[in-house]
């Protein structure tokens, strides 16, 4: 088992690595060989959407996922998350690798069809509404809400990403997306398959009162 990156950031502003983050790390570890085969002799453009503390991107950099020839462009809407991601990468000795965090709303601003490996741990917790982006930095809790709450079925943000997937992924690109049971992931899988995607459950795990799962989507 690969070691978990060391993270130390202000959890009043940035989502603290939890069961969902660790599930993603395990999934990426188990997918390592498949990814390495896919990206042999190719540059891998890796984009984690909503990178938060940076634990997932750092884990990928540390363990050369998908391959040794990769560039990492993590994205978050929160300035604190991007700062934390830079810091986490540095703390774990990843300064000698290609990393450029970008502040953006999901994938807006990314050139079409360039992402080879997309990882998304979305705000998946069901809630009546999706919070607005805070206009100033004073209410730190608001930034955390943004990382957590996903509207009605917890799927409002995820659905937006999945519906745009054909414009984001490169022709051989893959996406790993995390769900909780209340997101009805089986229905999402079916919906994506109807739209012509391959959709596969990679891992499912009970975490406290939640059941988390990660699905892989590709053309």
């Amino acid at each position: 088992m690969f070691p978990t990156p060391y993270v130390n950031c202000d959890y009043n502003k940035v989502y603290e690595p939890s069961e969902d983050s660790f599930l993603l790390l395990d999934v990426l570890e188990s997918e390592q060989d498949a990814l390495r085969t896919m990206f042999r002799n190719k540059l891998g453009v890796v984009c984690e959407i909503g990178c938060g503390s940076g634990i997932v991107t750092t884990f990928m950099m540390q363990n050369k996922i998908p391959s040794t020839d990769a560039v990492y462009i993590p994205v978050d809407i929160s300035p604190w998350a991007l700062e934390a991601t830079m810091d986490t990468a540095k703390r774990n000795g990843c300064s000698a690798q290609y990393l450029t965090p970008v502040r953006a709303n999901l994938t807006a601003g990314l050139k079409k069809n360039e992402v080879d490996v997309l990882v998304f741990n979305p705000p998946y917790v069901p809630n009546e509404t999706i919070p607005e982006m805070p206009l100033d930095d004073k209410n730190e809790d608001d930034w955390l809400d943004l990382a957590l709450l996903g509207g009605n079925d917890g799927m409002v943000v995820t659905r937006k990403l999945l519906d745009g997937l054909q414009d984001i992924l490169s022709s051989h690109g893959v996406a790993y997306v995390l769900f909780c049971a209340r997101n009805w992931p089986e229905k999402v899988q079916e919906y994506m398959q109807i739209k012509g995607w391959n959709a596969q459950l990679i891992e499912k795990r009970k975490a406290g009162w939640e059941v988390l799962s990660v699905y892989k989507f590709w053309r």
Partner: protein
Amino acid sequence: MKFLTTNFLTCSVKECDRSNNSFPLHYKGEACQLEQDEGIEFNPEFLLRVIDRVEWDAVVSVAKDLGNSTLPQQKPVFENEELSEEDMIVLRDLHVLLIQTNIVEGEMTCRNCGHIYYIKNSIPNLLLPPHLA
């Protein structure tokens, strides 16, 4: 942000998706502060994959924005598996440009809609104000 990342960014405005002018963004040379980051070692293999992948016209265009007009118009080709000394010189130069050059502060403008984005502390900000988002 590292130079190579300019090859993956475009305007966030939805209507600009269909325009050929929104990529690459225009980098305002006099507003851009560059820094050489020598932390990443030169790796010819890695660089070959990068060159294979990039849109060369965009590399040339951004380099010109930032005051470097020395790049060839055509993407360099490396025909022999065994890299010659000249090949290595070209690769080293591109390593310095694409991987080591960091835009610490700067401004980038969409050539289609004119929206200006800023780079601060090496982080490009592609968020739009609410009326454009």
